[in-house]
């Protein structure tokens, strides 16, 4: 038995390294100002897909990502680890999308890919932490979902068995294919890049990347067509432009405020024996502790 798996991956700004220019005046994220990484839980998702590929020979793993041109990097990272192909959904009209407009665009791209048994993605992306896109894509495709997955145990006769890690326990559930599975960070880490795949795919490029590259890749790409990474626009996936991007987003950012904490009158204490002794005495005396 072989499976057709689509992994949804997002390139995210590394929120662990945020500077002052992180937000634009309109309240959306200024991605250009931040280092971009493969969303961590999407890597956990990719690993689950690759394990299925190891278990069920003939299985294919397709990376689907949406973002600006540089998000093609996510596809290459996937290919380096064992994915078979990837598509980049990119169009100015997708910009400013909330989770609903995002899931609409992704669901239209999945309809274009058409053949799939399983869609796997990270539970949530670190730049928003909403955990909404997976379930919203499932709903738009009219299929079910298994969220908070920690381990895909098996797929047999069209039924997938998944262990879920919830905030207060675990569940093992069985669901009929096709289905969306969203994966937690408690799942195993993704395998590292494979030297052979790096060698094979290091020149993989989108049309836009080829046009801006210094070297001429025409001949190479004619010999090795798998190096072509397809870019899809709104029109390519037959999406309604009004349902995409800012115009397709029911939620709007009304305002953003820098937070200024109500500063307290704080008492400075040096970590000396005398001052620490005095502090503990004070806390005991006023019944804060003890």
């Amino acid at each position, binding site marked *: 038995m072989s499976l057709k798996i689509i992994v949804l991956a997002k390139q995210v700004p590394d929120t662990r390294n945020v500077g002052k220019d992180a937000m634009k005046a309109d309240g959306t994220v200024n991605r250009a100002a931040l280092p971009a990484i493969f969303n961590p839980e999407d890597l956990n998702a990719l690993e689950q897909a690759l394990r299925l590929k190891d278990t069920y020979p003939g299985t294919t793993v397709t990376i689907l990502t949406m973002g600006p041109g540089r998000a093609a990097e996510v596809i290459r990272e996937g290919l380096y680890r064992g994915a078979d192909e990837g598509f980049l959904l990119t169009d100015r009209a997708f910009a400013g999308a909330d989770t609903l407009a995002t899931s609409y665009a992704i669901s239209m791209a999945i309809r274009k890919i058409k053949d799939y048994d399983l869609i796997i993605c990270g539970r949530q992306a670190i730049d928003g932490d909403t955990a909404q896109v997976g379930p919203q894509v499932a709903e738009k495709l009219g299929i079910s979902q298994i969220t908070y997955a920690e381990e895909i145990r098996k797929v047999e006769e069209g039924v997938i068995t998944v262990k879920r890690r919830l905030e207060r326990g675990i569940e093992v559930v069985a669901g009929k294919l096709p289905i969306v599975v969203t994966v937690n960070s408690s799942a195993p880490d993704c395998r590292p890049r494979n030297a052979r795949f790096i060698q094979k795919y290091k020149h993989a490029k989108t049309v836009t990347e080829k046009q801006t590259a210094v070297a001429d890749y025409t001949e190479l790409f004619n010999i090795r067509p798998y190096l072509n990474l397809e870019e899809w626009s709104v029109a390519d996936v037959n999406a309604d432009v009004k349902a995409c991007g800012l115009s397709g987003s029911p*939620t*709007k950012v009304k305002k953003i405020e820098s937070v200024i904490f109500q500063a307290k009158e704080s008492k400075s204490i040096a970590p000396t024996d005398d001052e620490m002794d005095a502090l503990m005495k004070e806390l005991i005396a006023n019944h804060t502790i003890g």
Partner: protein
Amino acid sequence: MNNLFVYCEIEEGIVAEVSLELLTKGRSLANQLGCKLEAVVAGCDLANVGEQLFPFGVDVLHVFDDKRLFPYTSLPHTSILIKLFQAEEPQIALMGATSIGRDLGPRVSSALTSGLTADCTSLEIGDHEEKKENKVYKDLLYQIRPAFGGNIVATIINPACRPQMATVREGVMKKEIVDANYKGETIQHNVNEFVNDTDFVVEVIERHMEKSKTNIKGAPIIIAGGYGVGSKETFNLLHDLAAVIGGEVGASRAAVDAGYTEHDRQIGQTGITVRPKLYIACGISGQIQHIAGMQESSIIISVNNDPAAPINAIADYVITGTVEEVVPKMIKYYKQNTK
């Protein structure tokens, strides 16, 4: 019509804390809007939920009682909310930012194209002027949450689509009974009119739920560690201090991500919200997401070797030093002074 709905979670016949907290918030928003507060419960053996819910000011309770609705699976509960919301047209729908609410909310909002804001830390009612359309939207739900990166709070609105949906974590809102004798109406719905047999495509084979191992939410003293603690070994010092002075150990997200401690100790917007008598922040710089979860602590002590750590601004006591240096001294002088 156009009332405020809260989806309530039930485990073993008991309504979840987060649902009661949302009903409390929902009641006060409904009063402001002049609308009713309606609660939805779906599960089995729900005979006793009314007496748990009405004291929180529920005007209408929608009950969906069917063996197949427990344990929770995505599609049947989604079908119930979609059909109920299509018929009742709520203006606002709230649910817990739990593994259930975060599974259910997005599906319902996707089907109703209504928009959904996750993990709100505050909900308010207000107007919005859309200058381009020259239009004023009255009485919108302001869905307020810390956004991106840590130093910004965003107010999200949903001007045109209904319901305005939001999820909120447990502990963020305060639970408060309105009136122990509050009377509301109960509607027992015919579940078969809401769900299809084809909704039961996912089956729960095994289920082990446990009470949380930690009791951070109710602890009067919390010692929390951040990334600045530096290592798992140093993090153990916090447990030593907690054992001596009788507290619980919490952590910032960065400390959890670094593997210093377990996820269920995470305090902040995407973790637990706490209001202890004493909060000792060790090696925590103080991103807004963390502050959101502990700023109502009565007394805050910050232990940080960076005198400019943002958390120091809200601390009552600022100790500039390392965790390795300060925490053992706290233990030593606590013991010495309590003998």
